[in-house]
């Protein structure tokens, strides 16, 4: 525990050090990045200890804040989340050290690294905090630090806008968490998590209310639909290594918070599971549909985070439904699949964001339709991006398949159950996951195929260059992470036992029986994955042998005899997904503005398609406009006289005092 606190301290101190050294960007970067990497490594060690079965004693220090206390503990659930939360920022920081160097001197990099390390430290603190006040404080600083990271390019209008959206969303979400913790702590008169748990031996309706509060509050951070509106704004605006950390790991603090709350609320009702499955299905399907329609690579990836959070929610929903039945296989498969997907998504999504950063660094644009042919110019980025693309589409043999496989098996367990309720849930999960999987494969064949394959579609990619090693290494590390998890899936699964003990509330011996059976399944999946790769290798050798002494010629792509083919004739990303976006037009409402050629000698023609977020446009904007209209009625209260404001405060305090005493 001391080691972990030291690591958090190191992160904060190196951040402050980087800020002090602001005048010399190179040194500031060195201190900041060195601190993140060292602190990350130092912090991961105790997490591994906990997962391998060594319990660590909690630390409790007095604190003068009302209801507060510096109470921290590292249990299995925290440790499981802690490893990616420290590991991914360490790699992203190394990447960022080169990614940001183009802006050397122009901006104060010191402050950037201060906020970056602060964000990492606060994510770790959120995971180990066991007191409501400490938790909310770390949560708030985490949101603020990431706000400053998102607005790094603050001279751009759209970045400032995105920053505001993010800040407003985070605070609305946190408001729900305040209510949640106040209600939780009301009876026990303490905000320590141990006591919160005991207080909820309450009426089911109350527990249900608290659960909904947690869904809204933590779901805003995680990106559940329809609280997801900040993701497609904030992720593209932030520098790529920041997007990688935010999308890869920071949003998972929402999932962690939800799981922690579930352990506090006691036995769940069946409708909690249904709610999670519903949210998961909507987030998953709509997330990937909106991703399909995007033209900007980072916006596309941001919507995929919504999709993957949806898959995680589907898993958790199956688990919660399993707890309410109760059914041990559903619990184990749902929670294990969801939790494993948390780690998998952390790996491949940060990998893809770093890849997107490399592409933008090299070409100066993230507009998919302007790219093409980068495979030959950026081979390393291309291969790592391809691994990420296969993994995120949930295809074997990589890690995305393993976690989706567990959730699928959970769905099938539900289908073959004798009750009607798990059967319908199982069908929804199966159909939903398969549709999400098919659409995700469509979206990533588009992203990879249009960006890296074919010929350059404009001058941007034509002169692209491979990224420097400091940017390539983190991508390689994350890609190997994807491969390693898929190779050692059964081992990772057994490590999850302490985590499952906490989330399911079962004893280890009750879990073991189910766990052993499912480990066997994963063994088969891994072995067949390896066989698949081996067969591919053998066929590759066979093909090589067949062609070795034959004539192999190179020519142009088959062009139907057309004399002057041009790269502009290639299929574009928009045309590639057009059948799908047309099919689902009712759900995503893509806007077309078409300027058709007319007359005998048409001058120009153009087609623009744009798919804005319908919730942002139709729901939030309308709601916010109504609120502004309502609040404008009270504008006379706000006149700029500070003296009168003091009077307001005095009156308010007086009223509260009367209320309390009388």
């Amino acid at each position, binding site marked *: 525990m001391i080691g972990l606190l030291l690591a958090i301290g190191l992160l904060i101190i190196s951040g402050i050090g980087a800020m002090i050294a602001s005048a010399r960007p190179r040194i500031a970067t060195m201190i900041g990045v060195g601190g993140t990497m060292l602190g990350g490594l130092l912090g991961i060690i105790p997490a591994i200890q906990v997962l391998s079965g060594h319990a660590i004693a909690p630390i409790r220090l007095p604190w003068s804040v009302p209801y507060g206390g510096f109470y921290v503990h590292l249990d299995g659930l925290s440790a499981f989340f802690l490893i990616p939360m420290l590991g991914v920022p360490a790699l992203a920081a190394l990447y960022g050290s080169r990614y940001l160097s183009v802006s050397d001197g122009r901006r104060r990099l010191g402050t950037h690294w201060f906020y970056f390390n602060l964000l990492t430290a606060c994510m770790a603190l959120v995971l180990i905090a066991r007191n409501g006040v400490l938790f909310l404080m770390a949560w708030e600083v985490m949101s603020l630090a990431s706000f400053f990271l998102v607005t790094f390019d603050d001279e751009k209008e759209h970045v400032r806008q995105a920053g505001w959206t993010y800040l407003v969303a985070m605070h609305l979400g946190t408001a729900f968490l305040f209510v949640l913790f106040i209600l939780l702590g009301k009876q026990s008169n303490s905000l320590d998590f141990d006591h919160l748990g005991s207080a909820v031996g309450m009426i089911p309706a109350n527990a249900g209310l608290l659960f909904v509060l947690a869904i809204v509050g933590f779901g805003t951070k995680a990106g559940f639909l329809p609280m997801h509106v900040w993701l497609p704004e904030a992720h593209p605006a932030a520098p790529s290594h920041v997007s990688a950390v935010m999308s890869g790991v920071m949003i998972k603090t929402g999932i962690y918070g939800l799981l922690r709350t579930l352990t506090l609320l006691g036995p769940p009702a069946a409708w909690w599971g249904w709610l999670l499955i519903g949210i998961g299905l909507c987030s998953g399907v709509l997330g990937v549909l909106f991703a399909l329609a995007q033209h900007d690579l980072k916006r596309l990836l941001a919507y995929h985070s919504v999709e993957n959070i949806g898959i995680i929610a589907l898993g958790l929903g199956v688990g919660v439904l399993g707890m309410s039945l109760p059914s041990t296989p559903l619990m184990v498969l749902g929670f294990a699949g969801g939790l494993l997907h948390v780690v998998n998504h952390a790996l491949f999504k940060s990998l893809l964001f770093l890849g997107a950063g490399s592409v933008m660094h090299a070409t100066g644009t993230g507009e998919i339709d302007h790219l093409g042919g980068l*495979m*030959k110019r950026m081979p390393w980025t291309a291969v790592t991006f391809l691994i990420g693309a296969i993994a995120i589409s*949930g*295809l*074997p*043999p990589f890690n995305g398949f393993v976690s989706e*496989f567990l959730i*699928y*098996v959970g769905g*099938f*367990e539900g*289908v*073959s159950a004798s009750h009607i309720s798990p*059967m319908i849930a199982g*069908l929804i999960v*199966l*159909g*939903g996951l*398969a*549709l999400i999987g*098919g659409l995700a*494969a*469509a979206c*990533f*064949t588009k992203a990879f*195929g249009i960006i890296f*394959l*074919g*010929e350059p579609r404009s001058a941007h990619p034509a002169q692209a260059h491979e990224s420097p090693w400091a940017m390539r290494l983190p991508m390689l590390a994350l890609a190997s992470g994807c491969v390693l998890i898929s190779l050692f899936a059964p081992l990772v699964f057994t490590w999850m036992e302490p985590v499952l003990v906490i989330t399911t509330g079962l004893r280890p011996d009750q879990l073991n029986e189910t766990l052993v059976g499912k480990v*066997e*399944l994963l063994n*088969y999946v891994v072995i*067949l994955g390896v066989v*698949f*790769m081996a*067969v591919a290798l053998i*066929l590759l050798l066979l*093909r090589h042998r*067949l*062609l070795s002494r*034959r*004539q*192999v*010629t*190179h*020519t*142009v*792509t*088959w*062009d*139907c005899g057309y004399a002057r083919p041009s*790269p502009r004739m*290639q*299929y574009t990303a928009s*045309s*590639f*997904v057009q*059948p*799908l976006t047309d*099919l689902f037009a009712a759900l995503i409402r893509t806007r077309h503005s078409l300027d058709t050629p007319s007359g005998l000698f048409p001058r120009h023609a153009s087609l623009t398609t744009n798919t804005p977020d319908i919730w942002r446009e139709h729901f939030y904007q309308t709601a916010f406009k109504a609120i502004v209209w309502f609040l404008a009625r009270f504008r006379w209260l706000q006149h700029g006289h500070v003296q009168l404001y003091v009077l307001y405060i005095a009156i308010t305090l007086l009223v509260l005092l009367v209320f309390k005493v009388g």
Partner: protein
Amino acid sequence: MYAISMFHTALALLLAPLLLGIINQTKAFFAGRDGIPLLQLYYDLWKLLHKGAVYSRTTSWIFRASPVVGLAAVLVGLTLVPWGGQAALLSFEGDLILLVYLLGTMRFFTVLGALDTGSSFEGMGASREVQFSALAEPALLLALAVIVQVSGSISLSTMYAALTPALWLESGPAMIIVAAAILLIYLTENARIPVDDPNTHLELTMIHEVMVLDYSGPDLAFILYAAALKLWILGSLLVGLLLPVHGQGWFNTILFFVGMLFLAVVTGVIEASMARLRLQRVPQLLVCAGALAVLAIVLMQR
């Protein structure tokens, strides 16, 4: 028992290209032609394996890896499919998910190979392929979910072993509906009429054929052979449902093989007697397959 499964797998490897010959012969019969020889695909494969190759200068290693990955995926998938009343070579709980997703990996690489050429025709085919497969995948899993529910198992071999003639008598209508759903998926996934026309000669109207337009030599042989095996895999899933025979013995093997031949004839009849659907209509067909599967599950409830 294991030896028989091995034998069945070898049979699939050997006879899969024959099914396409039968389909073509049937079509020729209905059109009043002599048709291409029954063993044409074998000749083609033999010829292609002995040729050199031509590659587009636009392509990268993805284009060369794509046929290899595709063939590897169907080869591994083939070992999971039960055949002739016998368990598959390999079986474990959840193997049906792996099978469906291996076909997904194959498709992923075929599409990337098509996009790698930078040709707008191949992009067009790829675009259609991802649209239809995104809808076919849920339909296939839902259809298999019916059998999962009947058998209480999620391993293909155990699932198909639980299908008995008694079950057909008991819930025949539901089983027919599932079979119809799987037939639709079988036609779509194998690029047959009414979804795709393998005989079309205009790049603009193709789906699967146009994606592999730039392949030649051994690569094309791999692709054609993989397509034949895929037809065999999905065909076995359908025939296994319709012919609930169990136990080992030559009789079952022969009966099942006749079933496969009959399916090929039926495919040929469908191709000869139907026009291809308009592309916009195909999604409706696939949604229909998914709806049929759900309907069957509802009918199975009592």
